[in-house]
Each structure stands twice: as structure tokens, then as C-alpha cells.
């Protein structure tokens, strides 16, 4: 240094010097260079090198020469100053080691971090004589350390360093936290190892303390010191050369992997559970496949067997391996192949199909297999059941049933014809009886009260006619002609008929409630039903007894009706017919309403009576019940829906003798093969004032129709020998378009198909018919035809 310098030279030197210092500063910044000092404690002098001077912004020349010791503290950041002073005081008082990190203020106002490391040099009396040390710029390192610290704490990563052979380990605070320990910097290795699960690897294996540890990754469980909880930690790290000793240091990190482990664990458990489910369902599938008694097969979409179940052997006689790989059609009964081919295509196209196919058994016989198929992707899964035996049994059963039905039919026909004959006989008896009385009275000249017997005969004959109607109704299940019916009046009107039917041994009591409501039903059916019940009652009392007919009202509420009862809540008219006869057993009662069930000997009843009555009451919206005890008698009650409606009961009005509509000389052609019927028709028409032409059949009628004579109406039987009534009518209308034709028929089927049978200008009347109705019809048709 040049002292006392002045003038331009000095200025120049100064500026050169500044430039040099600046360069040095830059070099120091770049190199993180080390500056040294020596503090003479006894003489209180500080000597430092140029680098120390530069880094503390002091004059290197002065420091090299020696300055007062307070210059040691120049440029120290005010916040760090006290710390440093205390540490220096410690050294001066006898402390051995000085190691401080602090900030130095830079010339530009910023600061740098430095580490001052020093120690006391002692004199012979062990008293500190000198304090020497070095200063190093650690600004960069500090920043890196800070980044590292933040990274560690953010990542929950603890770090440690282990020098080979040492019993202790340097740890970070975060590492202590991971182990649940108080934060510290050095821990015995054994301390950490003791927290680790005995089955897991220790953090550092002390059994070979002087050898290199395994560098690999480790995972271990620790029991945390703070709360005793078990956590999974992972260790990663590597060896580096130790700069202080000649040994090697293991630098590692520790982090918590408990959650990852737990996730792994639960994943593994879930996987195992899933695998178990899969295994179980596989086992189940195998069991089903092996043990199935039905055929289970897998087919590809080309119709080749991919797999068949072992049941094939039992059902079709082939071992599965003989079948697998073969075409399905080869196993099908030859006659069924064409049909099966299209069915197979269908199975390959649609998701589900069902088919019944005959398959060929190994013994060459066919087996009927009922298949259900289900397609999934390019596989068709089929399930087949051997229904051969079922089919055979079904055929046998059907055959047997057919025979049984035939037998039943024959029996029913026998009963029906017998029963009808019986009922018919009864009615004929009434007619014949009345006629014979009339004949006797005429013979005796007592003609004043003939009407009564004529009425009786007419009534019996009407009933016979209505019996055949009913049979037709029964066979056709004709709907009821429901009207409001005055039941008590009906019963009263039938009293004489009952008397006649019952004979003298049976006492009749009619007990009619004056308040009896009207019933909503078919009057003819009801009449027939009551008569049937009376006849049944009579037959139940061969030795005589009392027969009571009662009418009354009843109103049922929901509560009155037991479960399963067919009656609905409401008002009903009850007609009860009771006898004091033989009565019925419960078994008989149970079957009494069955069709064709009868207790009467064959020929004495149709067995249809009660079942028809039952059906009729049901159809009317009512019910029929039987109350009976063996030896005491039977009461049958009919329940019919009541109506308060008052309507003229035309059909029940006493038949009034009205004047029959008379003809005015019109010409009627009668074609009828039955002589007596033809005679009756001809006589009636003549009496009514018509001109009548007769013909026995169609062949004889044709010339008359084709002739020129006047014909206003043709009355023809339908069932004629040769040319039938319908054909004749067509010819007639073709020849005479204005002509009307009235068909007479007893043929039920024709009557039922009235609409199809009749063309315009044609009408039909069903045998037997009342002359009145016939006269009325004829008159109507002639009137209509003349007005056309």
C-alpha cells in the first residue's frame, strides 16, 4: 500500500484498487472462498486474511497488520450479532469449539450467509490463548438447505445419515416425527431399531456394524413412540464417501407408506375375495355341468358341438368325447333334420329359442328332446330335456281320455233321452188326460166347462214345447231373456199344475210372502226351474208327504256372506221348495249340481235338472243352495236378484182369447211331407180364410210355382226329401221375385243360423209352434209382401 498518496496518481491507484477488489469480490462470490482469522486473546488483536477482509467489507491491509478484536464483528447482520458475541464469549471463557452460521451485510446492501468455524488454542496452562478459525460463504448451500427442508416437511420425508461403524445416526426432525419421537439430531441406531417390528428389517443392521449395509429399499413397520400406533415406513438411500472420515456414509430418507400399504392390503383382500368368488362359481358351474340329469351343450354358430355334458351318455348313449366336434345335425333323427336346420339358424340368430327335436340314440331309436337355447356372442348354450317318456304317456293319457269321454257321452245320451222321455211322458199325460176328459164330457154332452180342460191340455203341450226349447237353450248356452218377474204371481199361477203333477198322496202348501219383491230373471227358465224342483221333491217322497213352496226376500250385506260365497251383497228374492222326503247325504249334496248327476234310475231323469237350475241362477246373478238331511227331507232355495221395477208381465198375463188375424183370400202354397202337420197347416189356413194349395215335397211343388196360378206365400218345411226347403225357396223367388217364403223347422242348427239361412223375403218359425203365432206370422208376411 502506498501511504500519503495524493493527486491524480493516487486517484488512479485508488480506482485500480477498487477495480481489483471488485474483481476479487466477484471471484469470491463465485468460489465461496474461505477466509481465515486469528484472534490473539491475551493481546486483544485480530489478524485476518484478504478474503476475510473482502467478505466483511474491510481494508485487507489493516486486517493483515492487525486490528482491535471488535473488528471481528464488522458487517455482521444486527439480528445475528448478539448470538455471535455470546459464542465468542464462550470461546474466550474456555469453550473449545466455535461453529456459527450468520449473515454478513454486503456492500450492495444485501447479505450473504457464512459459517464461522473456529476453536480455541490453549497455552500450557490449558487456558485459551488464541481463537482461530475460517469463514465460508454458505449462501447457496443455505438456499438449497431451505429448499430441502421445505421439500422434506411438505413430503413428510425424514432424512438420516449413518456413518459406517457408528452406533448413532444423524436424523432430521421429520424423521423423529415419523417415529413419534421428540425432535433431536442424533439418535442411537438401536433406539430406532427397537421401534421396528421384529419381523421386519431394521433401519440399520447392527449385527454387522462395520460392514456396508444393504443399499436396497426397505419397508418396515414401526410402533410409534408417541401413540403406539403401527405405521409402515419406507427407507431409500445410498452410500457416499464421508468427507470428514475416510469411511462411507449412508444417506437415506424415510417416509410413511402406511396408506399405500393399507390400500395394497385392501386391494389384495378384495382380489382374494374376488378370486374366491370366481373359484366358487367355477366349482358350482362344474358341479351343475357334471351332475345335470339333463343335457347341457355348447354349440358354435356353425352348428358344431363345442362341449356336451356327461349326461349325454345316459340320455343318448354316446360318451361326450364322441359328440364334441361333430355337427349337431348328425345327431338329429333323419326325418327331423330339415326342420332342425332352420331352427339351428334361428338359435344362432336370436337370443333365446325353444324347440323340440328327435335325436338319435346310440341304439338307433329316436328320443324326443325339448331344447331351450340361449346365444351369447358366437356361442349357443342349449339345455335339453328328454321328454320321450312324457310324450308317450301323454299320448296314452289322451287316448284314455278320449275313450272316457266317449263312455261319458254315451252315458249322458242315455240319461238325457231317458229323462226327456220321462218328462215328455208327464206332459203328454196331461194332454192325453185332458183330451180324454174332454172326449168323455162331449160324449156326455157336458160342454159347458170344457175350456178348463182344453187350457190344461194346451198348457201341458206348451210345457212340452218349452222343454225342447230349453234343451236347445242348454246346448246353445243361449243368453237369458231377463225381465222383471213377479215371483209370487208366477207361483200362484202354477199351483194347479203343481197339484196335478203331485198327485193325491202329497200335500201342497204354498206360502207366499205378500211383500215378495219382483225378481230380475227369465220367466220361462224360472218356471221350468220351479217345476223341476217340484218334480224332484215329488220323486223324493214316493210314500207321500208335504211339499212346501215359499217365497220371501233377503238382503245380504258384506258381513252376511262367508268367504268364497259366489253371492254378492244385495237384495234377493228367495224361492224355497221343501219336501219331507228321503233327503240327501253330504256326498250327494256336494255333487247335486254337477251336470248329469242323478240319483234316479236310468230313464227316470236327465240329471240335468239341478245343474241347469244352478246354471240358470248363476247366470241371473243369483245362487242356489241345498239344505238336506237324510230321512227328514230337503229344501232347495233359489236366490234371484230383486228388482223394485214394475213392468207389465205380458208373458204371465192370463192368455186372453184374441181374434186371430184372418186372410182375405190370398193363395198359400204349403209344402210339407208330414201328413198330419200338413193337414193341420192346411186346415188352419183354410179356417183363417186363405186359399191353400198342398204339395208333399219340393218336386211336386215346382210345377205349381212355375205355373201361372196365383201364389202369395209359400209355407215350406226345411227338411224335405229330395229338393230341400231352402233350394225350393230360391227357385221360387227366382221365378216370382215378389214371393215370400215362410220356413217351418224343428232343426236346431238351422234355427241357430237364422241370419245366414234366410234371404230377403224369407222368414222362419220353429216347431212346435202355437197356431196363433203361425197365423200372426202368415198375416205379417202377406201384409209386408203386398206393401212392397
Amino acid at each position: 500500500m502506498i501511504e500519503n498518496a495524493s493527486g491524480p496518481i493516487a486517484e488512479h491507484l485508488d480506482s485500480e484498487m477498487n477495480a481489483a477488489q471488485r474483481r476479487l469480490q466477484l471471484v469470491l462470490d463465485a468460489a465461496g472462498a474461505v477466509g481465515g482469522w486469528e484472534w490473539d486473546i491475551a493481546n486483544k488483536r485480530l489478524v485476518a486474511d484478504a478474503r476475510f477482509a473482502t467478505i466483511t467489507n474491510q481494508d485487507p491491509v489493516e486486517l493483515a497488520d492487525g486490528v482491535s478484536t471488535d473488528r471481528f464483528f464488522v458487517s455482521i447482520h444486527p439480528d445475528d450479532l448478539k448470538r455471535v458475541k455470546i459464542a465468542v464469549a464462550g470461546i474466550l471463557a474456555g469453550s473449545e469449539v466455535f461453529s456459527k452460521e450468520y449473515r454478513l451485510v454486503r456492500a450492495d446492501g444485501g447479505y450473504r450467509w457464512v459459517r464461522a468455524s473456529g476453536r480455541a488454542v490453549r497455552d500450557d496452562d490449558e487456558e485459551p490463548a488464541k481463537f482461530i478459525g475460517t469463514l465460508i460463504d454458505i449462501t447457496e448451500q443455505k438456499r438449497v438447505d431451505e429448499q430441502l427442508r421445505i421439500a422434506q416437511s411438505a413430503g413428510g420425508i425424514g432424512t438420516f445419515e449413518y456413518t459406517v461403524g457408528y452406533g448413532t445416526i444423524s436424523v432430521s426432525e421429520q424423521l423423529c416425527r415419523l417415529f413419534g419421537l421428540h425432535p433431536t439430531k442424533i439418535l442411537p441406531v438401536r433406539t430406532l431399531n427397537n421401534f421396528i417390528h421384529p419381523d421386519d428389517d431394521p433401519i440399520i443392521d447392527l449385527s454387522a456394524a462395520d460392514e456396508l449395509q444393504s443399499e436396497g429399499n426397505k419397508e418396515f413397520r414401526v410402533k410409534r413412540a408417541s401413540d403406539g400406533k403401527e405405521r409402515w415406513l419406507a427407507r431409500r438411500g445410498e452410500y457416499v464417501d464421508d468427507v470428514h472420515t475416510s469411511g462411507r456414509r449412508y444417506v437415506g430418507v424415510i417416509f410413511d407408506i402406511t396408506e399405500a400399504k393399507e390400500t395394497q392390503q385392501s386391494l389384495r383382500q378384495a382380489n382374494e375375495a374376488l378370486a374366491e368368488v370366481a373359484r366358487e362359481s367355477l366349482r358350482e358351474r362344474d358341479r351343475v355341468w357334471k351332475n345335470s340329469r339333463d343335457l347341457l351343450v355348447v354349440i358354435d354358430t356353425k352348428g358344431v358341438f363345442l362341449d356336451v355334458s356327461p349326461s349325454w351318455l345316459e340320455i343318448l348313449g354316446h360318451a361326450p368325447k364322441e359328440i364334441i366336434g361333430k355337427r349337431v345335425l348328425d345327431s338329429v333323427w333323419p326325418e327331423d333334420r330339415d326342420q332342425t336346420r332352420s331352427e339351428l339358424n334361428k338359435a344362432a340368430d336370436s337370443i333365446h329359442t325353444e324347440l323340440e327335436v328327435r335325436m338319435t340314440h346310440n341304439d338307433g331309436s329316436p328320443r324326443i328332446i325339448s331344447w331351450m337355447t340361449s346365444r351369447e356372442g358366437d356361442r349357443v348354450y342349449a339345455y335339453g330335456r328328454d321328454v320321450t317318456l312324457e310324450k308317450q304317456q301323454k299320448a296314452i293319457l289322451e287316448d284314455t281320455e278320449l275313450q272316457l269321454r266317449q263312455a261319458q257321452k254315451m252315458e249322458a245320451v242315455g240319461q238325457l233321452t231317458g229323462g226327456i222321455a220321462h218328462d215328455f211322458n208327464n206332459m203328454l199325460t196331461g194332454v192325453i188326460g185332458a183330451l180324454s176328459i174332454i172326449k168323455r164330457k162331449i160324449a156326455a154332452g157336458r160342454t159347458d166347462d170344457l175350456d178348463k180342460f182344453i187350457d190344461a191340455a194346451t198348457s201341458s203341450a206348451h210345457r212340452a214345447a218349452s222343454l225342447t226349447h230349453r234343451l236347445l237353450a242348454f246346448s246353445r248356452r243361449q243368453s237369458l231373456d231377463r225381465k222383471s218377474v213377479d215371483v209370487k204371481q208366477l207361483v200362484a199361477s202354477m199351483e194347479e199344475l203343481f197339484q196335478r203333477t203331485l198327485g193325491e198322496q202329497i200335500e201342497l202348501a204354498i206360502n207366499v210372502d205378500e211383500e215378495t219383491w219382483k225378481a230380475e230373471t227369465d220367466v220361462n227358465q224360472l218356471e221350468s226351474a220351479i217345476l223341476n224342483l217340484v218334480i224332484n221333491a215329488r220323486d223324493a217322497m214316493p210314500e207321500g208327504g208335504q211339499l212346501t213352496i215359499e217365497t220371501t226376500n233377503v238382503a245380504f250385506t258384506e258381513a252376511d256372506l262367508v268367504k268364497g260365497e259366489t253371492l254378492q251383497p244385495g237384495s234377493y228374492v228367495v224361492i224355497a221348495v221343501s219336501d219331507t222326503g228321503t233327503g240327501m247325504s253330504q256326498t250327494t249334496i256336494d255333487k247335486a249340481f254337477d251336470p248329469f248327476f242323478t240319483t234316479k234310475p236310468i230313464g227316470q231323469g236327465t240329471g240335468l235338472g239341478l245343474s241347469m237350475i244352478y246354471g240358470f241362477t248363476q247366470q241371473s246373478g243369483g245362487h242356489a243352495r241345498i239344505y238336506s238331511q237324510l230321512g227328514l227331507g230337503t229344501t232347495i232355495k233359489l236366490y234371484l236378484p230383486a228388482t223394485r221395477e214394475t213392468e207389465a208381465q205380458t208373458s204371465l198375463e192370463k192368455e186372453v182369447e184374441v181374434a186371430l188375424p184372418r186372410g182375405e183370400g190370398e193363395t198359400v202354397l204349403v209344402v210339407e211331407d208330414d201328413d198330419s202337420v200338413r193337414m193341420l197347416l192346411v186346415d188352419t189356413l183354410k179356417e183363417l180364410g186363405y186359399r191353400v194349395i198342398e204339395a208333399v215335397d219340393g218336386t211336386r211343388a215346382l210345377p205349381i210355382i212355375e205355373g201361372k196360378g196365383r201364389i202369395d206365400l209359400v209355407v215350406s218345411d226345411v227338411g224335405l226329401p229330395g229338393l230341400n226347403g231352402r233350394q225350393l225357396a230360391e227357385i221360387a223367388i227366382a221365378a216370382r221375385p215378389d214371393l215370400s217364403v215362410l220356413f217351418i223347422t224343428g232343426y236346431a242348427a238351422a234355427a241357430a243360423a237364422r241370419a245366414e239361412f234366410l234371404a230377403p223375403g224369407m222368414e222362419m218359425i220353429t216347431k212346435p209352434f202355437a197356431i196363433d203365432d203361425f197365423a200372426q206370422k202368415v198375416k205379417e208376411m202377406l201384409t209386408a209382401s203386398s206393401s212392397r
Partner: protein
Amino acid sequence: MTADTVDLDELERDALTELVNIGVSRAAASLRKMVHREVLLSVPSVEIVTRKSAASLIGQRESESLVAVQQQFEGPFSGRALLIFPQSNGLSLVRAIVGDDMEEAELLDMEDEALAETGNVILNGCLGSMANMLRHGLKMSLPDVRRGDSTLLFEDSDGRGDGGFVLFLYINFSVRERDIRGYIAMIMDLPSLEKLKQLIADFIERVMTETE
């Protein structure tokens, strides 16, 4: 640290650490004279904790049973000082001090004696120089050796029943290339601790004015 304790600020903690370092440096110097070997002692950190925390602090770190050299001290601040080692480290220290020549049996015979003597040097040097730096004197009792777990060592043997606090120092020894770790614990009651804090503040004040 709980509310009813004496809390040191960062500077006081630095100052206390420095005081302890001066103490252990003195002790190390004494040991060097005894064993004619390089002995290094350092105190990385100082804490004030409750007795219970001190017991668990050592309990956590040391799994084996402990051996301690114990001395009562009296002065501006009074209490009980403990130099604690894991049992095996204690023996290592004795071996380091007496040298490798001695037979194992002999060593075991004199273990307690050697430990008591070594402990006395360290504790005396440490506490004595601390007191000295704080410009006060301390009266130290004779050392005795205790063995047991950390709870036993920190139990309230003084019978004062005020719970008490522990000035807890973690120290590293390096003797004859052996690493020996140990702890110095100074058990004091609250008034003593407050007095110590006051003395530390005075010390800081002095240091600042002296070097200005």
C-alpha cells in the same frame, strides 16, 4: 414446554448452551489430563423440560438400563445434577479412562469408583465453570452412582414435591476413538430456574457491553 415453566428465548438458550459448552470443555480438559488422551465433549442442544418429560425423553432413546453419577449443588441456584449413560457406555467410558491394560474383572470391581470419579470431573467442571461465568460460586456434594431406569433416576428424591424441572443436555463424548453418548441433567425447582434465567440475562448483558 408448559405455561408454568421457565421459558428461555433463543438468545438465552444460545447463551446457556455456550455456558454448558464452556463447562464441558473444561471438563474435557480435565479428562485429557487424567487419561493423557484427546477427549472431546460437545453439547449440541439444551432443553428445559419437566421431570416426567425428561424421564420419557431418555426412556424413548435408551432401551437398556441406565447408570448415573449424581451430585447435589447449592448456590444461587440449587438442585441435583446427573451424568447419565446407558449402562454399557458407562463401562466403555471407564475402559477408555483406565486404559486397555486392566483385566475385565478388575475393571468391573472399580467401575463404580471410576465412574464416580469421572462423573465428578465432568460435573464439577461443567457446573463450576457455568457458575464461574455467571460470577457465582456453587457448592457441590460428593458424587454417588445410581442405576435404574429413567423414571427411577428422575424421581423426586429430594422430597420437595414441587415437581421440578430439568435442564437437559445431550452430550457426545469422544475418547480414544470411542463414541460414547450421555446426558447431563440438572434437576432444579422453579425459583432456582428463575434465578438461573436472571443470571443468564446478566451474562448476555455483560457480553454485549464488553465487546462493544
